[in-house]
């Protein structure tokens, strides 16, 4: 058919080929298969991560709810906030617990710097 001299038929055939959604989708997916795969992976990971994030949020809320700012002593507050900081560190992927608040601060600042570097 492609060798025909009937140009109208050739034009129509090419048109039908190009206007076919299946063909168009296939071409698009074929030449962008890495992106398609990444998007699928993203979709799959998203709900899992969302559940993890919700759990972290609940944990932090509970830990902060335990803190009684007016009644607790200085050391109790220190310990309570260190627990919160450890929870945050674990959520951000830190393996070990923080020794004290200063160590947590240094680590968090470093994280922010590296995350900011990535973001920009």
């Amino acid at each position: 058919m492609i060798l025909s001299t009937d140009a109208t038929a050739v034009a129509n055939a090419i048109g039908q080929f190009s206007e076919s959604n299946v063909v168009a989708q296939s071409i698009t997916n074929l030449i962008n298969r890495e992106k398609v795969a990444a998007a699928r992976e993203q979709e799959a990971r998203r709900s899992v991560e969302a559940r993890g994030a919700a759990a972290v949020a609940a944990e932090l809320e509970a830990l902060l709810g335990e803190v009684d700012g007016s009644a607790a002593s200085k050391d109790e507050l220190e310990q309570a906030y260190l627990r919160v900081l450890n929870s945050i560190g674990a959520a951000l992927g830190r393996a070990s617990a923080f020794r004290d608040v200063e160590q947590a601060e240094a680590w968090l600042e470093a994280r922010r710097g590296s995350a900011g570097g990535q973001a920009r």
Partner: protein
Amino acid sequence: MRVQRCIPLLLLAACGSLEVQVDVLDPRVIEREVDRIQFRQSTLGTALGQSRAELEREFSELRAAHRQFYVDLATQFVEAKKLEMAGLSDTGEDEGTDLLLQGMLEGIAQGIPALFDDGPGKRYEEVQEAIWRLFLEARELARQQDGAPAVEAARLGQRIQALARDAGESKADFVAWIEEDIVQAVRGAREGLDIESVRDGLTPQQFDAFSRKVSRSAERAQQAVDVAATSLVGQGSLFQDSYAFAVANASEEDWALHYNRVFGRGRFGDLNVAIKMNSPADFTLKGLTFDPSAVASIAAKVSTQALLVATQISGVPVDVGSDGTSPGGALAGSSAELASMQARIARGEALRADYQDALITIGLAITREADARAGFRSRNPAVRAKSAAAIQATFDAHKPRLQLKEASAGAGQPGGPSPARPAPGPGSGQDSQDEAASKGADEPEPALSEPRFVEVLSTHRKPQSP
């Protein structure tokens, strides 16, 4: 490699070709073949090799067949004549006359072979003798040819060939004469018969059968004529030709190519070519139409497709646009899905970055409050309570960012600094916190999913250490 994938689309192109070619064969090829056939049919071979006894036998066989034909014809003539007379007898002639006539007829029939012997039969001996004389002459020359010089031998050879050809032609002429004689004899016999009387002598059934036989053969003859008339090449076909093998077997250089050629070619466009055969092997171009109007639409479609594919190969989604009728609409439509896919990936990454940033922000809010004067390390319970309240407020403000969900438009907290500002505490940290908070509040509120959000949050600064 990616570019190669779109090349087939660019190569989709139309073309067509029609060609009629008539080639001509060197006529000498056929002449050579004629000579060869004649020689094989023993003009020269017979002239030099056939014995007198063989020649006589050949002629006597021919004569016997010819004579037998006369005998058969006479027999059939008498039979037919009897039928004719039977038809006549109904008219009232007396039987005695019939018998007499029959006797006469049989006498004539018996006399016919003798008539042949006296008439046509005599020519056999004459022709046979003439041919034999040519043979003898050719053989005498062949004897002289042995040992003669080359030029003389060649001359003698030509004369021998001529004699042999004469002998062959004499024989062929004689055979043709025999055939003509037979035709004449049949015609003479027919003229001597009265067909109406023949019909009277037959029963109706016999005559019907005879008529059917005649009409059937007439039909067959008509069909043969029709087939010959409707055939494209008519009598020009090689199939019935005794020289077909010579034609088919002729070497390439004996053919003259490029004789009577007709071409029709088209690239793109609608092309119609009419080629007419005037007569066998004579072609002419009768007409041609060419309509290039569709070429533009092919070019547009092909190049649009190629461009769309190339765009997607480069990783750039194509906007579908408002009109779905433009060429490549489907491809552009599928590209829109790709675009939303890429947007989802980007959004997901932004949400994750935002989530982590929110955690860090909350953590840093706590560490910022770890201050002996203005934070929760203060000896003053009131200061500690305010500090705890500030931390709680920061957490409440950033809690929505921990959900990894896109904020629906107008709902939820924008990710800006907490609207419930941290309680001002004594000390140098207070000013800087206020400054940070007011700076954040002055910023336009960006959507949660925007990466820009991260930048806004990073305006939080740690209070100055005492």
